[in-house]
């Protein structure tokens, strides 16, 4: 524990103005203490003069020895700050206890997500995958310059020098110097064009335990979220949005709202009518008193049940081919045994614990934004367009995000644009305004995981061989019309079908079709994106097919994964560790297995459930095997699998956003239920040793839990779930 404390403390310190980092590179965020207990928010700290060492965009070394790693990715719980710092510090041979992390400014030239091309942002479990080589090189180059400085100072060959935990050693001459003391001279050394990266067998941090840099600040209440931003003269805004998607303001009466003490202004913006007040309480009282008439002529007024009925009908019509191997229809027609099933998936809200919020300080020629920002350069461009400024006039301070699960990454930057439009309507006079969403705003706010209908058919030969597989998917595209619309090829949004069109099982005839729908409901990716529904359909249906073939569902899958060794290996590992073949469960309990690939990470899970006499399901244990390439931080990998399992389990048991005549029927955590403490199963995580390039872990753990639990319920009861969430059938 003692080894953890300094690293964690130093993170907190990095948020304090004048924390001792001496550098010529502009700091991105600065907080200062204005005397307890009131915490002031100082805005960006001025760069301090001095002789620090900033060899590249990703690291600064202070003369005090502090290592500041600049993170281009948001920390929203997934461990990105720690992972990024681990990779860079490894090649730098830094002392982990002196490593702090700071968020990068919005700048696609330096900080683009290499997986997204020219956009700076976080998503698709790509933070480590796209940073891996970039940050190893950044760390190695900084190290090479420190060694070059020592070599010059001591007049010895650089090849005779080594570095360990922030110290450069010249063993032959018994000399040593800290990185901090070498920093000024290192800053004058040429940046090497190429560097040799470490042999993985020499890793000291990667694959070992590097404690999270944010654990202490997140255990004593000092971690800074957007909610905690407080600037001199700051006001709080709540926005009254339309009750139906697509409705607009017809008229409003602000008199009663303005009569609430503390309410300063009521302004109309494209998204609705905002009440701007001195604090949240006044703003919320003001919003309650506000009267708005809505024009719902172009609003979505259907019920979700009616939309699903339409999808069911569309599944019988020809769709666009997402994959076509052989002739599945013919193979199924000729089959000895046929199996078919259809599945219904609801809209899902992300419901991160921190309701959406953003602070904007807008003037005639500048816009400063504080947010748990997930798409920095898109948000910068959208904020600039809203404010009537150039993107270069918009600066973004990325703070810790209190969860996201995809919600804060959206190509329209909804909550950022709202905040900027309110600041503009307020007068763009430099008054800082914090837009705060309530939980009800969040649940009603759209940008949901789309609703989907899936229809599957399979044909088995007389010998129980899987001969044909048809999979029809109906639902909205999350990529259509946005910055990532270029991913749509021949009418197929790959995120609608991933996990289905990429089915790993060796089947001679496969047909996957997509019908893309349009509704007035705004949709968005949600943790693990397409696999959040396709893995459920594929993995419960293959289970059903295995049973129809009279075969063990694990053995049936295993023999069809010959072409996918990594997927097969996690399946085998999960089966072995769970005692799949060895230990039968007593009556009333069941065990189910599922495997999925998402973002090039492979995860298999075995769930064990108990079903009570009343039919209530309790998930007792989940055994998880994961292959994410080179494990960078095993403890964070485990944490992400644990968290992914809990997140996915809550969704399949309870998660549903439904509409009645266009109105969202859920409001808060009472009607939009999520997994609670007493419902969390025991989780056991096994990580596959691998030398492959690392892949992400923030999302993939979500995919297999639903089907594994559904298959376990079938094993216990003989009953299958085709409609999500399970609570719809009264068994959750």
């Amino acid at each position: 524990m003692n080894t953890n404390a300094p690293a964690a403390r130093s993170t907190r310190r990095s948020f304090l103005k004048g924390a001792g980092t001496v550098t010529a590179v502009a700091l991105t965020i600065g907080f200062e203490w204005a005397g307890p207990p009131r915490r002031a928010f100082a805005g960006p700290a001025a760069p301090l003069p001095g002789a620090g060492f900033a060899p590249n965009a990703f690291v600064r070394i202070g003369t005090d020895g502090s290592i500041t790693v600049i993170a281009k990715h948001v920390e929203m719980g997934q461990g990105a700050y720690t992972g990024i710092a681990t990779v860079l510090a490894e090649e730098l041979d830094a002392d982990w206890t002196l490593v702090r992390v700071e968020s990068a400014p919005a700048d696609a030239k330096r900080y683009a997500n290499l997986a997204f091309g020219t956009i700076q942002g976080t998503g698709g479990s790509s933070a480590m995958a796209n940073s891996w080589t970039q940050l190893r090189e950044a760390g190695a180059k900084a190290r090479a310059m420190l060694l070059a400085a020592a070599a010059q100072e001591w007049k010895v060959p650089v090849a005779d020098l080594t570095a360990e935990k922030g110290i450069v050693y010249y063993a032959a001459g018994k000399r040593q110097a800290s990185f901090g003391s070498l920093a000024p001279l290192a800053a004058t050394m040429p940046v090497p064009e190429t560097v040799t990266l470490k042999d993985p067998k020499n890793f000291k941090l990667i694959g070992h335990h590097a404690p999270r840099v944010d654990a202490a600040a997140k255990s004593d209440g000092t971690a800074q979220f957007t909610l905690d931003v407080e600037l001199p003269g700051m006001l709080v805004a709540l926005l009254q949005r339309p009750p139906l998607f697509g409705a607009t303001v017809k008229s409003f009466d602000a008199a009663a709202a303005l009569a609430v003490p503390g309410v300063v202004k009521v302004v109309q913006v494209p998204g609705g009518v905002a009440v701007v007040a001195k604090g949240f309480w006044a703003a919320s009282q003001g919003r309650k008193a506000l009267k708005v008439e809505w024009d719902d002529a172009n609003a979505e007024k259907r019920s979700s049940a009616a939309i699903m009925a339409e999808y069911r009908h569309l599944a019988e019509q020809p769709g666009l081919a997402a994959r076509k191997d052989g002739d599945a229809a013919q193979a199924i027609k000729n089959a000895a045994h046929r199996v078919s099933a259809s599945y219904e998936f609801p809209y899902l809200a992300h419901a991160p614990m921190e309701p959406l919020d953003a602070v904007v300080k807008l003037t005639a020629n500048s816009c400063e934004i504080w947010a748990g920002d997930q798409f920095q350069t898109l948000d910068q461009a959208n904020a600039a367009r809203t404010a009537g400024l150039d993107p270069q006039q918009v600066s973004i301070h990325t703070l810790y995000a209190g969860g996201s699960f995809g919600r804060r990454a959206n190509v329209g930057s909804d909550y950022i644009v709202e905040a900027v439009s309110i600041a503009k309507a307020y007068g763009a006079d430099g008054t800082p305004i914090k837009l705060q969403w309530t939980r009800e705003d969040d649940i009603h706010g759209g940008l949901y995981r789309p609703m989907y209908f899936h229809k599957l058919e399979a044909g088995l030969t007389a010998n129980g061989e899987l001969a044909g597989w048809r999979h029809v998917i109906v639902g909205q595209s999350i990529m259509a019309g946005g910055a990532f619309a270029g991913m749509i090829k021949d009418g197929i949004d790959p995120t609608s079908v991933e996990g289905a069109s990429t089915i790993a099982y060796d089947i001679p005839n496969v047909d996957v079709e997509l019908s893309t729908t349009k509704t007035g409901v705004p949709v968005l990716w949600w943790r693990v994106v397409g696999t959040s529904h396709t893995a459920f359909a594929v993995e419960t249906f293959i289970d059903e097919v295995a049973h129809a073939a009279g075969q063990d569902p694990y053995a049936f899958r295993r023999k069809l994964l010959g072409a996918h060794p990594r997927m097969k290996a996690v399946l085998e590992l999960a089966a072995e560790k769970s005692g799949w073949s060895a230990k039968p469960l007593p009556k009333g309990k069941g065990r189910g297995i599922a495997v999925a690939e998402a973002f090039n990470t492979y995860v298999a899970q075995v769930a064990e459930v108990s079903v009570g006499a009343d039919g209530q399901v309790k998930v007792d244990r989940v055994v998880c095997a994961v292959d994410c390439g080179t494990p960078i931080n095993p403890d964070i990998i485990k944490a992400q699998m644990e968290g992914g399992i809990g997140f996915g389990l809550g969704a399949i048991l309870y998660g549903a956003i439904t509409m009645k005549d266009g109105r969202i029927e859920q409001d808060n955590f009472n009607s939009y239920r999520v997994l609670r403490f007493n419902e969390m199963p025991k989780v056991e995580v096994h990580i596959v040793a691998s030398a492959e390039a690392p892949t992400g872990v923030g999302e993939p753990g979500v995919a297999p839990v639903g089907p594994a639990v559904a298959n376990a319920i079938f094993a216990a009861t003989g009953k299958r779930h085709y409609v999500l969430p399970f609570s719809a059938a009264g068994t959750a």
Partner: protein
Amino acid sequence: MSTTFTLNGKPATLDADPNMPLLWAIREVAGLHGTKFGCGMALCGACTVHLDGKPIRSCVTPLSAVAGRQVTTIEGLASKPAKAVQAAWVELQVPQCGYCQSGQIMSATALLEANAAPTDADIDSAMSGNICRCATYTRIRAAIHAAAATIKV
């Protein structure tokens, strides 16, 4: 209108609407930001503080209700169980996004202050009102057991 009470062991007089939820009085008037807003309806526990040593949801507790009483927030945690809980949270690397963790820690501390050796069932009943969307629940349970073990020593 002002309300006087004890905040983290010190007298505090807050000039605010007595109907203002304690959460916002603590955050926006007293300037203590560790206590978080999650639901506004006592459904998620992110706003948990101690009132006379018992965990309460500050988002639905009017400021007037704490007049003359003792309020403790994450910033004021000082008891042996509290320090054991916070140390265990770091040791077992509980937080992910971290937003709910002040509330989790307040609930866990109140549990251990009342019951130094809680069973799993005790932990379930004390913690099921605190939602964590990152689902750090398995580590919270382990950290509460670990903290209990250190208090015993």
